[in-house]
């Protein structure tokens, strides 16, 4: 039987800083972000990034959290849950993480995480998650001053992209590059509704459009939808993006073109922003607890 290729699949990953020894840290804090599509765990040693995992979410939040943790801690020699001083849960599954001491929304956590990844100059953060899309106004400390969420429409979300990948049989990780391998930038598709994507894509391909051109049209439509959301809160420099779609050049470049501002380049995997922010809060809660 031929193996059914899954185009929506992206590679799970882990990271551990080989130069850090967690035993030397005063505070080992952690964050777990259980999202609808992906789950991450981040471990900080005295507020500096030590280790993380980036995994696919399962059907239950507690098991997704445990899975992210198991995969992360497999890489950290000797570090087990009981050695972690404080753990904060975030994301859609945040209240169902049995081993978290506290839950903080992904909005606050993304702000804090983005501040770590991108620095204090970020004022506008765009998070394109698995099933929602949000824009945040941040201050220099990474605190959220205002936000807008869209969690009713798949356009501008990871799930939306996965649907396009499946329809066009293109690995989701290759969409970005392919969308630029075209002669001319097409008009964005008229109906951004992901429910109708298959019908629209089929029609375009029948009209003689290449796959790449269809990809470009979809990336363009998603970018436009996302920019609508961004503009409702206005975009102030510096601008940064977190979430899986931050890795999709096809959408990112088109967003940058529409708003006339370039997004900051991350020095680490932007998908961990939520868990990272949660780990930062965990450290702060632990300090407060000790006082």
């Amino acid at each position, binding site marked *: 039987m031929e193996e059914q290729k899954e185009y929506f699949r992206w590679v799970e990953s882990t990271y551990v800083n080989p130069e850090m020894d967690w035993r030397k840290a005063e505070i080992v804090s952690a964050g777990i972000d259980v999202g609808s599509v992906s789950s991450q765990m981040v471990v900080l040693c005295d507020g500096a990034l030590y280790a993380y995992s980036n995994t696919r979410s399962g059907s239950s939040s507690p098991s997704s959290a445990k899975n992210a943790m198991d995969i992360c801690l497999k890489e950290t020699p000797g570090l087990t849950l009981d050695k972690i001083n404080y753990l904060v849960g975030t994301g859609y599954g945040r209240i169902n993480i049995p081993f978290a001491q506290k839950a903080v*929304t992904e*909005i606050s956590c993304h702000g804090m995480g983005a501040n770590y990844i991108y620095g204090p100059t970020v004022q506008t953060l765009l998070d394109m998650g698995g099933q929602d899309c949000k824009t945040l106004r941040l201050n220099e400390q990474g605190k959220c001053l205002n936000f807008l969420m869209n969690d009713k429409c798949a356009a501008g979300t990871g799930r939306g992209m996965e649907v396009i990948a499946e329809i066009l049989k293109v690995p989701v990780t290759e969409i970005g590059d392919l969308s630029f391998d075209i002669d001319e930038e097409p008009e964005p598709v008229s109906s951004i509704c992901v429910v109708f994507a298959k019908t629209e894509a089929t029609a375009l391909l029948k009209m003689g459009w290449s796959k790449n051109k269809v990809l470009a049209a979809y990336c363009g439509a998603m970018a436009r939808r996302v920019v609508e959301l961004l503009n409702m809160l206005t975009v102030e420099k510096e601008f940064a993006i977190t979430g899986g779609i931050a890795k999709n050049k096809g959408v990112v470049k088109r967003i940058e073109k529409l708003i006339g501002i370039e997004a900051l380049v991350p020095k680490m995997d932007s998908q961990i922003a939520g868990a990272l922010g949660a780990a930062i809060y965990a450290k702060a*809660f632990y300090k407060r607890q000790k006082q």
Partner: protein
Amino acid sequence: MTETLKTLEEIRKVNASFPFSEPARKWKEQGKKIVGWICINVPEEIIHAAGMLPYRITGGDEEITLDRANEYLFSGSTCSYSRTILELQLRGEYGFLDCIAAATPCEGVIRLAEVGTHYHNIPILPLLDIPRKINERAYDYYHGEVVGLKKNLEQFFGITITDAALANSIAVYNKTRVILQKLYDMMKKDTPPLSGAEMMEILNAAVRMPREDYNILLGNLLKEIETTGRALPAQPRLMISGAVLNTSSFIKGVESLGVNIVADDLCNGSRYWWEQVEAGEPVRALARRHLLAQCPCPRTNPQHMRSEWLMETAREMRLDGIIALTMRNCAPYILNLPMWKTKLEDQGTPVLDLDIEYGGGFSGQVRTRIEAFVEMLSLEVEI
């Protein structure tokens, strides 16, 4: 000190049987009549003076499926409030009403009245038209409409409504306004005596029972609060703003995230009881009060009166934030929101724009937004 108040238990009994409350049932058993009303621009005092029980038509404390109502009112362009009311009517749950008195605040209510008349047996009096502008000519016009309502009631029931009866009814309803204002003033404390959810239960009961009995309950409630010294813990202070909201369970959900709802800008809240009827010729006085826009409805014009009331309330109640409930297709509320949102934000009161359906519960999506808003207001950490 947050024990349950005995009077609150009494109030809960009134709300327990919905929509046909125990007091309403007892009223009907005595052979008396009940007039349902929609929209606060229908002066209840006139219905009361006619010897009928004025009974507000609302949804209950839970979201219901609107399958039948959706067949009659297209859900893409009508609000869930009008469809909830229609659904309850189609299910026969408001069958105990003898007639309905409605006004014309918006298309939603107008269509509800028209469609409702068509599909259930409760007679509806000619609609009371409400002007949108607030000026002297508007008062004259509205006065004419209120006179019309009085005549229509008299004709329908074959009775006469005397000035003396009106004066008495006005006194009864003014008493409610005085006591509710006292309760509201108590919410100015850092440690308010009531939660927002409890206030909502108290407000819901007002329009489901004879007003004289309700005033007694309110009086008892005030006494009980004073003697017990009831005080909720000090927490961030929020206001719920919206078109209309009757679900105390929703407010309870919001408050469970660590906030006190100390004020409201709702059609069945402050906008309902604010401002007393003044002395003078009763019908004129009623018209003046019921159109008076000190606590104006989003539909009224000029809109600055509403913005000013909200800014003033934010200062007086020392609000940390406002949750604005935008119900889909509620044009008056949604289109009015931008007029005051930035003004409040500039004054230092953040506003959360939250879309929920009427009767909507406390879903995960709703919880996340409110929780993030509360974190924005109160989560301070040393990194």
